[in-house]
Structure formats: C-alpha cells, structure tokens
C-alpha cells in the first residue's frame, strides 16, 4: 500500500468505529431524545471525516467545468440521502465507496507491479572494459565498438559479439525457451539474456537504443496504443455512460415525483443511479486484460504489437505458412541413409571421406551428418566433376559419390529412390554401396504445432511455396496440411492470399506465417502477419504484427490459446460489469434495490473485474 492508501485505511477504520457507536446508540434508543438537528450533526461527523477528499475533488472538477464526475455524483447522492433523513445510509454508502476505492487502488497497484515485473529485462548497468580497468556505466553511454565485461549471473546489457570466454546464456526472458544456449568467441549475443556461468568479454555491436532489449520493451509498451476494437468501444462507451446514467437519475427524481407527489421515495431511487454512474470497472479491467494477454505472450517468446492483433489472433480460422525457412529449416540435412551391403555409419563415413575436400552444400550436410571429421590425409587423388560428383581414393579403395549420371558413367544402375530431396549415390571400387537422401528438413515440432492449432480451433492450414510441386507436396503430406500451393513467385503468393481472403467469412481472420524477410508484401496483406523472428532480426520485427522470437512453431497454438483466454476474460468483465450495473439500476428504478447494492455495483464490481483481469497477468 502507498502512503496515501494507508491514510485512507486509517480514516476508514476511525469512521467505521464512530459510525458503529452511533448505530448502537440509535438502535438502543439513546438518540431518540436529541431531536432532528442534533442527530444530523452527530452523523455528519463520521460523514465529513470519510467524505472530505471526495468533496475537494468534486469542487476541483466543477471549477474545471466537469459535471459528470464520480466524486461529484457520489457527493450529490449522499447529500440527498441526508436531506431525506437517511443519515445512516449516507454515511455507510460513502464508507463503503471509500473501502471499494481502496481495494481498487490496491488491486491496480498489484497489477502495475506485475506489469513492471514483465518489463524487468532492462539491464541496469554495463561493465565497460578499458584496458585493465572495469567501470560500471549506464548502458546508454556505451558506444558501438566498446568492449564490455559480463560476469556470471549478470544480464547482457547490449547486443554484441563474444571476444573471449564461453558460457551458457539463459534466453528465457526473451524467448520463453528454458534450455540455455551455449556461446563461444565469435558468437553474437543479444541483450536481455542472462549470463549463466562464465565471464564473457563482448564487443558491442549495437547501441542501447538499437539493442534487442530496447526494441522489445518499446514494442510491449507501445502495444497499448494500438487498441483492440473492444477496447475502443469501451473508451467510447465510457464517455457517454456517465451522462446517460446521470440523466436517468434526473428523470427519475423529477417526473414520477411530479406525478405522484412522493419526492422522498423517487429521490432515493435516483440516488441509486448516481452511485452507479462510474464506468471504472470497464475502463480499468478491459485494458488490463489486454495488457496481461500481451505480457503472457511475451513471456512465451511471442511479441504481439498491439491489443488489436491479440484480438484478431483469437479468431484465426485460416493459417497460411511459407515453406522454406518457416515450416522447414531452410538448410539441407541428411534425412535418410540407405546402405546396400554395409551399415549406415560406414556408408556415411565413406561419403564423408570422399567429400571432405568439397565445399558444396551436399558435401557440408554429409560431413555434418557424419559427425567426426574424417582424416584428410587418408584421402588421395581427389577429382570433382561438376554436375556429377566426386571421386577419390581412400583406404586404398576407389570411392565415387554423386548423382545418377556419375553412377551411369561407372556402369552402375542405382535403384530408384522416391524423395522430394536430393539423392547422392555411393560406389566403392565399382560396387554400388547405397544412397544418401538430403532434404531441407522440416522444423522440429512443426507437425505437433499444426495438430495443436487444429485442436485450438484453426480450421485450415495451407502452405505456399516457391519450390517444386513434388518437394512442396511431400512436406504438406508429412505435416497433414489442407492445401499446398507450389511453384509460386513472390507476387503470386500475394494473389493466392488475396483469393483466400475473398473466400473467408467477414469475422474470420487469415494469418500468414513467414520468415519476415522476403515475405513482407504477403505479411502486410494478410489480416495478421506472423514472423519467425530469429532473435534480433530487424526486418522480421518490422514487417509483422506478431513475432515468434525463437522460431518455434509450437508458439502459434500457445498464442491462439492466450488470445482466446484474453478475449474470454475481457468479455466476461464487460458482461458482468454491465449486467450487474443494469440490473441494479432496473431494480433501483422499480424500488427493489437499496444504496448498498448500488455501492456493490460500482466499486465491488470494479474490484472483481480487476481481479478477473489479473488472472491474465498470472498466466505462466
């Protein structure tokens, strides 16, 4: 609690004590002989104690020409209660109003703390290294090219490149990924990560302003300026709500009274309206819900650039994926080894021996698959024939590695291998030894992600690719996609997405997932653009509405679930708050509600709505 809140609490306690004493005296009949004015004066003491700040605030508002203010309306309601002789009611309404406001203040304070915890990726200082001396510096003052020292346990303050030292980096704050990443000299590191183990010296490559941490923070903070439709509606609604309710109160106080002559009864009913005149429950809880949703997503490594995008993500019906670099890794890997008359390891080792001198992508993927680097001196007489393959002598045997054309020249007819990728055959001393299939491998978890998306309610998953039909179809079949459009030029991808946009229903959302660099036109054309962010890639962060920081497709269904939960909580709050308020107003107009119910419909509902919205901040 803040100092101001503690003072309010003290006032509430004293008032409550005084008020209770008065009530006891009244009920036991000891106030009966005092007369009207003296009783009023006695009840006015606790009232003044609890209401004076509301009075001051109301006076300030009137001076500014603001009439529709909750303080003023609350004051009018309670003063009216005094006028019609309901002293105890006047005091208790003000008392409970203040208690409610206090609860609301504490709840807001707690959510603010949770929000700042979300933002705690900002490093406080950087250790600037000049020669042998280390000085703690504001990260803002460190320049590109400076060398900084990052000790174990410290946060990486600026983006840079490791000069010396090896360590494990905890990237959880940025990517939601809990497995630490190993870094060694030459590796790029991004700010916001935590250096888990060893000390590192790092040459700074980006100023603080341009570092990943600043960019992310700015995105999350600015996210609230791109308001969701629901939020805009609430802002507009709040503006007309108070005048409308006040007008209703006025009408109820005047018209039936003139007709029936019973001013007291109708004035009391009008007061109920005045007490419910603040839209606080909505204007606090709705933005808080969206903020919580964006925060929960960012903790999972998904950056959402605005509440409007989170709202859209909740109603995605079609998700279109780019193939290379999104569904696949965009790099070639050995996916199958098909030996003939030897084991897999031998086949790979022989191939790696022959390819050890080559820099061809095929050679690199075979060497990577083999693991240990083969002894180069074991290889002799190496010849590379472009368009065919490589021949070499190793361990005294003649090895040929290449395509079908090379095999044909050696008089071998290799078996047909059905694949979307590239096939490399191997012959040893003129004998066929087997085949190795190299493909652009599908990302880990891609199939899992597609299945989870379907479960989360995405009806259609489509893939677009510039690749050959057979290669694209193979990926599509493996992942169980609904449709595959292949051999598309970048401009044709836009056309394809536009056709899908025309087909879908008006309330359905089409999302496009791309790697963000060459997909910019499609990303902007789709209702919702997702970029695979590859930590720190600026182009991707600029182009898309939502960025998946660690390239893990499994974040997509998580995001859809977070978005749905956010929308559910926001809608719950809107219906709950409006429902209770309208119900109490209706009951009040008909004479069934009292001031107590009105206070609950005002501050009580507000506190409950905030607590409900805070569930979003807690989503782990």
């Amino acid at each position, binding site marked *: 609690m803040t100092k101001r809140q503690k003072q309010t609490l003290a006032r509430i306690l004293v008032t409550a004590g005084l008020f209770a004493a008065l009530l006891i005296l009244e009920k036991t009949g000891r106030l009966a002989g005092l007369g009207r004015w003296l009783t009023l004066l006695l009840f006015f003491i606790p009232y003044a104690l609890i209401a004076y700040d509301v009075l001051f605030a109301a006076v300030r508002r009137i001076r500014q020409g603001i009439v529709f203010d909750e303080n003023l309306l609350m004051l009018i309601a309670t003063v009216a209660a005094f006028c019609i002789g309901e002293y105890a009611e006047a005091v208790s309404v003000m008392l409970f109003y203040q208690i409610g406001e206090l609860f609301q203040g504490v709840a807001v304070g707690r*959510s603010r703390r949770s929000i700042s915890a979300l933002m705690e990726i900002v490093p406080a200082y950087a250790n600037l290294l000049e020669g042998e001396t280390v000085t703690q510096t504001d990260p803002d003052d460190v320049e590109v090219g400076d060398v900084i020292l990052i000790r174990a346990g410290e946060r990486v303050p600026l983006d840079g490149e490791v000069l010396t030292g090896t360590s494990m980096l905890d990237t959880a704050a940025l990517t939601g990924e809990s497995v630490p990443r190993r870094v060694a000299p030459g590796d790029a590191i991004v700010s916001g990560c935590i250096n888990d183990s060893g000390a590192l010296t790092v040459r700074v490559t980006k100023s603080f302003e341009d570092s990943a941490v600043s960019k992310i923070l700015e995105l999350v903070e600015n996210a609230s300026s791109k308001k969701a439709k629901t939020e805009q509606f609430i802002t507009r609604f709040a503006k007309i709500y108070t005048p409308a309710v006040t007008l209703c109160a006025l009408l109820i106080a005047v018209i039936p009274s003139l007709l029936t002559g019973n001013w007291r009864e109708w004035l009391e009913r009008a007061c109920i309206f005045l007490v419910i005149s603040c839209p606080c429950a909505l204007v606090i809880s709705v933005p808080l819900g969206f903020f919580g949703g964006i925060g929960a997503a960012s903790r999972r490594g998904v950056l959402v650039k605005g509440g409007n995008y989170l709202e859209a993500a909740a109603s995605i019906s079609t998700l279109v994926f780019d193939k290379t670099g999104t569904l696949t890794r965009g790099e070639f890997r050995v996916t199958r080894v098909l030996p003939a008359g030897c084991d897999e390891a031998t086949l790979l080792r022989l191939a790696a021996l022959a390819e050890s001198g080559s820099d061809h992508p095929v050679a690199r993927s075979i060497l990577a698959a083999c693991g240990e680097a083969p002894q180069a001196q074991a290889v002799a007489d190496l010849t590379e024939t472009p368009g065919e393959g490589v021949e070499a002598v190793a361990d005294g045997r003649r090895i040929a590695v290449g395509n079908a054309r090379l095999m044909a020249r050696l008089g071998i007819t290799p078996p047909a291998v059905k694949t979307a990728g590239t096939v490399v055959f191997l012959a040893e001393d003129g004998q066929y030894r087997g085949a190795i299939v190299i493909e652009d491998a599908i990302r880990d978890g891609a199939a899992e992600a597609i299945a989870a998306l379907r479960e989360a309610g995405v009806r259609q998953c489509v893939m677009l690719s510039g690749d050959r039909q057979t290669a694209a179809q193979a990926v599509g079949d493996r992942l169980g996609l609904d449709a595959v459009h292949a051999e598309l030029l970048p401009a044709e991808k836009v056309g394809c997405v536009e056709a899908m946009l025309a087909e879908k229903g008006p309330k359905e959302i089409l999302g496009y997932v791309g790697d963000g660099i060459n997909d910019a036109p499609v990303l902007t054309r789709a209702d919702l653009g997702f970029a695979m962010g590859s930590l720190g890639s600026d182009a991707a962060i600029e182009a898309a509405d939502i960025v998946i920081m660690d390239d893990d497709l499994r974040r997509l269904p998580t995001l859809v679930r977070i978005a749905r939960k956010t929308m559910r909580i926001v809608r719950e709050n809107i219906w709950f708050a409006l429902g209770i308020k309208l119900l109490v107003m209706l009951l009040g107009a008909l004479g069934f509600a009292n001031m107590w119910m009105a206070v609950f419909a005002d501050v009580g509902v507000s506190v409950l709505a905030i607590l409900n919205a805070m569930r979003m901040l807690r989503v782990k």
Partner: protein
Amino acid sequence: MKKKFAMEGVDCAVCAERMAEQICKLPGVENASVNFLTQKLILEAEEAQLEEILAAAQKVVGRVDKGARILL
C-alpha cells in the same frame, strides 16, 4: 519529437484520459496519451517548446488529480 515520461499517483483511469485530452490541447503539442496502467505520458510535441509544454502539462495533471505528477 516523441518522448516518454514516467508519472506517479495516477489513481483513476478516467482521469488519465482527461489528462491526455487536456495536454493534447496545449500549444505545441501534436499528440499526447497517458497510459493508466504503466503510468506513462507519451508526448509528441515541438522540441523547442518542450520545457514550457512540460510545465503546462504538469499543471494540467495536478489540476485533474491532485496526487498525480509527471516525474521529470
């Protein structure tokens, strides 16, 4: 020029809207918004007049909510 300023004591969401509205009307201000949750004032204004604008904005903030102020 766009700048962010931290605030404290912003206790009511409706007041935050009001502050932003009134700051927007100050001379030299292109756009202003007050984020109730993060307690931040985001000001788009003429760099040259920044000091006067901030002083005026501080007054506006105090007038709308006595306990609130911009941290400068």
